[in-house]
């Protein structure tokens, strides 16, 4: 007799609960998409179908610029944070005992600190030392904020490594550089990607840190949207949100398609 293994799928009510969760997650996104075609002057009150906001958004230079600022911070932030996190994870992995615990606590501390504390602290530090609020200072603050998040997937991936692989490689005479390029890096790539993506998303929608550390030339998108409260937000906000939703989704779909076709062709070649 085949034994049934335990799985979440067998929990009672799992199906309706799952469906409800999915609706809860995706309904707001769908609403944003629909409201980007709102005719009204108002972002939140529906009055009819129109594509006018898709054309006016091109004239709203401040909005477009803040979206560009957000991207120009989030992309390098993701790369830098993932690289620093990799170094930290490898280094901390090599440390032993108490030292390892202390180092790990230091890296993770920003996760449990309220963000308002770090952001006000960073601003106070910058003005004390006399660092002007520019692109680089905002990027720096974002990297600091993202590193603990980027650290998590890499650390757990490193812990799951089968140490025998490395020993085998060294037994067979591979240099440490070769072990790095042929084994460590390829094994780490999924973790690097997920920590980069995580950092990208955290940086993209960060509000508090940007609020305090951004300068006049570095208004990010979330700050711009919050600033709209004075006269009321127009559906342009929904349009930019919809575009930010559609473009990465398309990118992701293309990416998935590309990797699956490549894997299939690799499998075919191996046969």
């Amino acid at each position, binding site marked *: 007799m085949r034994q049934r293994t335990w799985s979440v799928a067998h929990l009672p009510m799992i199906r309706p609960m799952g469906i409800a969760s999915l609706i809860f997650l995706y309904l707001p996104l769908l609403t944003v998409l629909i409201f980007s075609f709102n005719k009204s002057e108002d972002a939140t009150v*529906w009055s009819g179908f129109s594509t006018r906001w898709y054309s006016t958004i091109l004239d709203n230079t401040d909005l477009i610029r803040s979206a560009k600022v957000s991207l120009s911070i989030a992309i390098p932030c993701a790369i830098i944070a993932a690289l620093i996190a990799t170094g930290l994870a490898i280094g901390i992995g090599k440390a032993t005992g108490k030292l390892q615990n202390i180092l790990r606590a230091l890296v993770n501390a920003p996760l449990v600190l309220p963000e308002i504390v770090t952001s006000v602290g960073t601003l106070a530090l910058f003005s004390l030392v006399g660092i002007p*609020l520019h692109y680089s200072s905002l990027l720096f603050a974002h990297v600091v904020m993202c590193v603990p998040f980027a650290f998590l997937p890499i650390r757990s991936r490193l812990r799951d490594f089968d140490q025998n692989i490395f020993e085998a490689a060294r037994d067979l005479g591979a240099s440490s550089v070769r072990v790095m390029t042929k084994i460590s890096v390829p094994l780490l790539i999924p973790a690097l990607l997920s920590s980069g993506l995580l950092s990208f998303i955290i940086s993209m929608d960060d509000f508090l840190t940007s609020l*305090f550390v951004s300068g006049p*030339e570095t208004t990010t998108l979330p700050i711009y949207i919050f600033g709209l409260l004075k006269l009321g937000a127009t559906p342009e906000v929904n349009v930019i949100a919809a575009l930010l939703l559609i473009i990465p989704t398309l990118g992701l779909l293309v990416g998935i398609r590309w990797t699956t076709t490549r894997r299939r062709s690799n499998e075919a070649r191996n046969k």
Partner: protein
Amino acid sequence: MKLGISNITVGHRKRLALASFATAVSLLVGIAIPQAGAAGLYPSKPKGTELNLFNWSNYIDPALLKRFTAETGINVNLGVYDSNAQMLAKLEAGARGYDVIVPTDYMVQIMQKKGLLQRIHRNAYPNGGNLKAEFANPYFDRGRIYTVPYLHGLTGFGYLKDKVTTNPTTWKEFFAAIPSYPGKTTIFDDKKEVIDAALRSMGYKPCTRSLTQLQAAQDLIKSIKPNLNTIASSGNIGRLSGGTSVLLMMYNGATYKAKLANPNVVFVYPKDGMPLWQDNFAIPVGAKNVDNAKIFLNWMMDPKNIAQASNWAAYNNGITGSEKYLLPAMQADTAFSPTAAQMALGVAMAPCSTAVNDLYTKVWTAFKG
């Protein structure tokens, strides 16, 4: 030690002498050529090409800023905040590099007391004398030493005349009418605006210290709460023009915009009084491009330019001569430009004292919770 002290004294004396010499020279020059004093106070040409404006998002016509750049060669970078309090917090924490900020009336006073604003020397500007008399000497900046006016508005209420037929004209009638339209009425999510309106509706003064009066205000707003569909300060233009709400607390400019979408919209300047709020341009301490900031302030006092700002935002301004550049239909509408009698009902509101503010917070918490 002694030597050090005497050195300081000498240095101090030297500085005093220099200062009095400089004063004497400037006085002499001032008498000889009256314009010379003004030359240092208002720049003859831009310095560099940058201006950092710290403002709400979407609170100034983007086309207007483009024209400013075309006419002066100065690029405007926009930094954004979402409330006066947050702008203050950021500048107090030491953020520098903002050249022009847009504080609301009461915030001007707070910032000036904290030493965060520069004297702007408005009288040296070519357009410095363009202020309307009623905006030249506000309570928060006597004589306009630190600010020039931007836009202003009044808080009253709006309704749909095809739905609300009682023709309310006061806060008293506004609150009395709310129970007739359950689920179709809205008030601001704003402690001060709502409690002030409730106090006015009963003939009391805002910022009152009387506990019985505040209790009465609390009872009033709690009694109408079940009839509200929402408590919100934004989104009300669409709510009114779309008919989601038929009776709402509104700013006059927002109501004018709602009226464009729905001709049944009416704005009321309540006869029992209302707050007049005014936003202003100021130059904070630590500004990098002070000359360009002054050029911007002067440019915004040109009637044609400020009129374009008013046309775009639907709020009136404090500059004489701007009337002839305003959109005729907008200017003819009392929701945009109140009559003299309606304008006289508006009161520039200083914030309540801390003690009264704490009482307001208690009332507001009891209402919302």
